[in-house]
């Protein structure tokens, strides 16, 4: 069961062209629970075509029990969630929001923490920086953005990290060199990155080449469910057949039919929504980060939040 809170957008702030900060408050004015650095919440966005559920990192102060803060970049090539938040959402808009969940926690036994943010990936890094500063832990922040005006929230980072904040402005030709950044770090250093896919891939590749173990190399990547050819999903236990539209994820289609399967990250990383495949007359398209190759090859499991089939009909054990 996924608990949802009735909330409203209490404030919208333009941080930069195409980047907005949103404040969320409880509809009943009550207190919000606190949360750990790296947590995200899932917003149920009332798009014209149906509810779309997207995860967003909480960037504010966990001790602030009156509001939650998220920041969203407007993405043209998307399924419409960020566009709706930028173009249609107004202050006062009511929204259902999940409880905070954390798939990107800080490593409490780390001796030093290197936080790396690319663009809007600064949002979880801000919450990590808050927590590390509060605990008096040793950390540094590296924040890469397109141009000076896109260095949103850098002033808050500066307050937390002081001289240990380093900014890299792409328009000035400044880029993060992972092989320098990760070199000669004492044992027990943990690295964390949130940013665009290319950046995440380069980071993992270079960290691995430099001998860093996976246990010390953390990243957060929310995959947006990629669109694809429409298909039908059949729920074996009820016989219900549901159409999955091009821009709709399989999970969203099932939810729109009134069924509430479990979910957590909505981005193919956590495994919570895993479903058993009983039959499929086309091919499975695995877009997730969770299933092993063996699981993928078996054809018996699928992550409906991001994965699809190439057409026809898939039957799941629901």
């Amino acid at each position, binding site marked *: 069961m996924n608990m949802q809170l009735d909330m409203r957008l209490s404030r919208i702030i333009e941080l930069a062209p195409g980047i907005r900060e949103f404040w969320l408050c409880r509809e009943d004015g009550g207190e919000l629970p*606190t949360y750990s650095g790296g947590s995200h919440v899932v917003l149920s966005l009332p798009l014209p075509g149906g509810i779309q559920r997207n995860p967003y990192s909480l960037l504010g102060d*966990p001790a602030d029990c009156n509001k939650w803060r998220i920041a969203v970049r407007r993405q043209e090539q998307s399924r419409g969630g960020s566009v709706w938040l930028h173009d249609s959402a107004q202050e006062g808009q009511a929204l259902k929001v999940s*409880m*905070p969940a954390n798939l990107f*926690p800080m*490593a*409490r*036994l780390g001796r030093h923490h290197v936080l790396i943010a690319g663009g809007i990936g600064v949002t979880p890094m801000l919450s990590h920086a808050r927590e590390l500063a509060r605990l008096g832990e040793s950390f540094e922040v590296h924040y890469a953005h397109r141009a000076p005006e896109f260095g949103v929230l850098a002033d808050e980072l500066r307050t937390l990290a002081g001289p240990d904040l380093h900014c890299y402005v792409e328009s000035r030709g400044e880029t993060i060199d992972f092989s320098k950044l990760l070199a000669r770090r004492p044992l027990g250093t943990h690295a964390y990155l949130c940013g665009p896919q290319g950046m995440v891939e380069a980071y993992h590749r270079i960290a691995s080449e430099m001998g860093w173990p996976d246990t010390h190399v953390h990243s957060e990547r929310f995959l947006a469910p990629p669109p694809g050819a429409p298909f039908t999903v059949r729920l074996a236990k009820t016989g219900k057949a549901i159409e999955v539209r091009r821009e709709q994820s399989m999970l969203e289609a099932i939810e729109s039919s009134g069924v509430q399967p479990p979910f*957590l990250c909505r981005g193919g990383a956590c495994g*919570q929504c895993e479903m058993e495949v009983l039959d499929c007359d086309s091919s499975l398209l695995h877009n997730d980060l969770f299933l092993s190759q063996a699981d993928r090859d078996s054809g018996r499991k699928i992550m409906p939040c991001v994965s699809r089939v190439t057409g026809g009909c898939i039957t799941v054990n629901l």
Partner: protein
Amino acid sequence: MGIAFRDETFRDTFTYRNSDEGIRRFPFPFGLDQYMYSVNIEPHTAGKPDSVYQYAFDIDEHYIAECRDRAITLEKDPGRCISLPHMMDSEWDVLELIMTSLSRDYPEHFALHRDGEQWTWTNRPLGIEQAFVFGNAQTLPYPPFEYITRQTQGDFVIMDHRDGDLWADAGMITSQADWSLAFDVGMSFKEWHGPVPRAHEIGVFDRALKYLLMLQLGNPVRRLNWTMTVNPRLDTAPETYPDWGPDRTSVTLDNVAEKVHLRVELQALFRLPRSNGILFSIRCYMASVGDLARYPKWARRLHRVLRDLPQDLAEYKGLVRYKPAVVEWLSRLDDGVPVPPGTDPE
């Protein structure tokens, strides 16, 4: 809703007794005539009124006496409460969770007033009035986890969630069924469950761990565990085994009804907000075989479960010496009539 707190002992004189209500609401764990391990987890939602499942943390007639017994155990052995250095955030999480739960669920006994970080906690049964600064351990007489668990029934383990596993990195353990916190602290989920027979092979801990890693804020879960104890003794730790071990040889057919107790643990698991850890509460309930047998359904069921309990489980639960006497005593109450599935007394 008044609770008539009892004045009783869990050692030496063993004056512990259950009222009739205490027996009626006892969490009898056997729904079938045969027992085997399972991932018997269910949501820890508000249960039936006046049941042990009604509230997040159950306070009953034994509250004051149990807190007193815990204090005695800790006086003799402070090493029953351990918290590894990185666990302070989780300690505050637990203090907040227990204080908000108890003050919400038992307003006539507990109160919590919060003004920013200035908190005032009132515990009427124990006569405590404590003003403190939330987040500042200097303002409490004990570290936060020890402070609040000294005022709550049951044992507690705080698990740290890291590296895709759960680690028992803090605990207040004074009513355990024979495991040592001093030895087990710092172990991973499967390591500290290491000694449990059979369960690993049938995948119980793999599934339980996978499930618990996904535990979410606001969605706690619970399950039951059980063993037996001779005399209503809370402190049955390995540390004090020489004190209670000999009791196992003192059971006869004449004293089974009063001496041998079914010991049930109501275990609940709560995701914690600041630390992202998990609180594991282990609430211990004891009822004598004689008291349980007042309900014919329970007498029959308990007889059958114990009679057919596999030997390795009996050994692991420490029942071997006195189980024959218990089975013999209960057999006289078992007429073989089928008992429907379920744990209700009638």
